């Protein structure tokens, strides 16, 4: 389908007519099936019993076994997992945004010796394979009594997302005209107030973008959660799903229901915030 878009059309008509309505629709339709198809398939399976699924993997659910969702919810501690994930992810995202924004602001705005060095150091940690720090991080958390605690996991999540946050926000903050800062200085504001009253509000589109990206990534984080959390009451959603899969080893229908439970809120949230995400990304690029 990629080739279809790229095919040169000897036309100088505006974009919409460039390669014909038909071709475009076909490509778009095909790609939508490709992205949504598997997901919808999963959705149908979530309301079918495993017996029905193995009889025909692609049949339309008949009847709809909505009770699978109830069973999945009751059977496993999805409520707990949700709550844990929410606490950890929301706290981590809030803190990393604040900490990252402060650092990004300092790096974008102030000239000081070692500015680029600090930036490079912070950014370079994006390169670290997580396995590199996993074991030591584990030991450190134990040293500070933060192992198997949501606080420890939150701290680790903050450190995980810090480089990306600084990277994205620094780029955006650097584009805020210096005049605004000068004006605020003339208006009598100090550095911290300028950050709070000027940078944060103006940076909101970019901050929204990093909030969303950080949220998605942490909501789905698995590796650190599995190593750093052992208490079933402290499991986050991805480990919860894994455990749930373990509990229902060959019950495809039930697994699908569990997966749907975990996925739907994120998709709804994205559908709600997607405009902001795009705007945030665009806002930085348009000056």
């Amino acid at each position: 389908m990629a080739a279809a878009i790229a095919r040169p059309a000897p036309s100088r008509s505006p974009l919409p007519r460039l390669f014909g309505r038909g071709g475009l629709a076909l490509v778009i339709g095909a790609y939508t099936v490709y992205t949504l198809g598997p997901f919808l398939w999963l959705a149908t399976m979530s309301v079918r019993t495993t017996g029905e699924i193995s009889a025909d993997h692609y049949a339309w659910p008949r009847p709809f076994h909505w009770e699978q969702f109830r069973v999945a919810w009751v059977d496993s501690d999805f409520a707990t997992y949700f709550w844990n994930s929410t606490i950890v992810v929301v706290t981590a995202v809030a803190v990393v945004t604040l900490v990252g924004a402060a650092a990004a602001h300092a790096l974008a705005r102030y000239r000081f010796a070692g500015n680029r060095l600090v930036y490079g150091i912070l950014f370079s940690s994006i390169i670290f394979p997580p396995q590199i720090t996993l074991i030591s991080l584990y030991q450190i958390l134990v040293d500070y009594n933060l192992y198997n605690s949501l606080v420890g996991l939150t701290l680790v999540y903050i450190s995980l997302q810090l480089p990306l946050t600084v990277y994205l926000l620094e780029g955006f903050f650097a584009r805020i005209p210096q005049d605004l800062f000068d004006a605020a200085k003339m208006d009598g504001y100090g550095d911290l107030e300028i950050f709070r009253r000027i940078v944060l509000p103006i940076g909101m589109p970019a901050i929204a973008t990093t909030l969303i990206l950080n949220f998605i990534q942490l909501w789905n984080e698995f590796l650190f959660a599995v190593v750093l959390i052992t208490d079933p009451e402290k499991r986050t959603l991805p480990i919860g799903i894994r455990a749930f899969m373990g509990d229902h080893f060959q019950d495809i229908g039930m697994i699908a229901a569990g997966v749907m439970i975990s996925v739907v809120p994120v998709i709804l949230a994205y559908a709600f915030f997607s405009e902001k995400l795009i705007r945030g990304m665009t806002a930085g690029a348009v000056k």
Partner: protein
Amino acid sequence: MASTSSLAAVPAAPAAERAAPRRMTDPRRASLPVLAVFLVPALAVYAGLTAYPAFRTIYDSFFTIEGMERVPVGLANYRELLGDETFWVAVRNTFVWAFVAPILDVATGLLLALALYAGVPFARFFRIAWFTPVLLSYVVVAILWMWLYNYDWGVVNVALRAVGLDGLTRSWLGDPNTALAAVIVTHAWKWAGFNMVVCLAAIHSLPSEVLEASELDNCGWGAKLVHIIVPMLRPTLLNLYVLAFIGKMKVFDLVWIMTGGGPLWATETVSTYVYKRAFNWNTFDLGYPSAIAAVWFGVVCAAVLLLNRVFKSKERLEY
């Protein structure tokens, strides 16, 4: 790590420098206390939860650590690494993935963004639909795609059989010839939407005059793409490539859940190998996996620097 010295310097002398009004008059400068307030939290998080563990890992790589005992072995772990066949297979697979797959990701993302930019109806719906895979966790994506690749009833083989191409059906994840490609496709499926959103944002920010001018120049769609859009998006595309590259150099979750590195190490990546050596082999030695991790960190850094040099791109991702 060169970082440690500068890390220490910032919080060390805030009081001494407080009386530096000279700096205050230039809004692009800030006194040390102010800088400290802004930077210390981030640097503290970095130092405590990234630099220190990383340093510890590198330190560990000069030991053999069995149980509670650590025996200094000098460079032995590194020497062993040179002769470790599995490691080199993992390096090869990771390189293939890291250099090839981002092209797939970025190209798909760009073309999708162009399709949306071309002004299709329901653009908002498509944007959400195409972004959906990004929202799914690797665990979910892995389950889903293992079902899709199922030999007996997976979509891929069912579709092939439906069009009479029974000969092409295979156990996609079980065949060393296709396993890596199959996992790469899955990974691309997950990430294309992200690239699409970034490209879309970048296209929207292109000055429309240039696009209009190119139309006056009787510039065809293909020509416009090649001569106008791609060159103007170049910084964005290159940055996406580098970001994707870094991501692939670390790729772990998906492989681990889908194939565990098999069959016959065909999908082994450096990350899965490190993890395997650290957590899955029935030995406790942390020194060797630490050595792999340390070497790999160096390789990734070098590769990123090299890419930046090749692309000569000082421009950064446009957000």
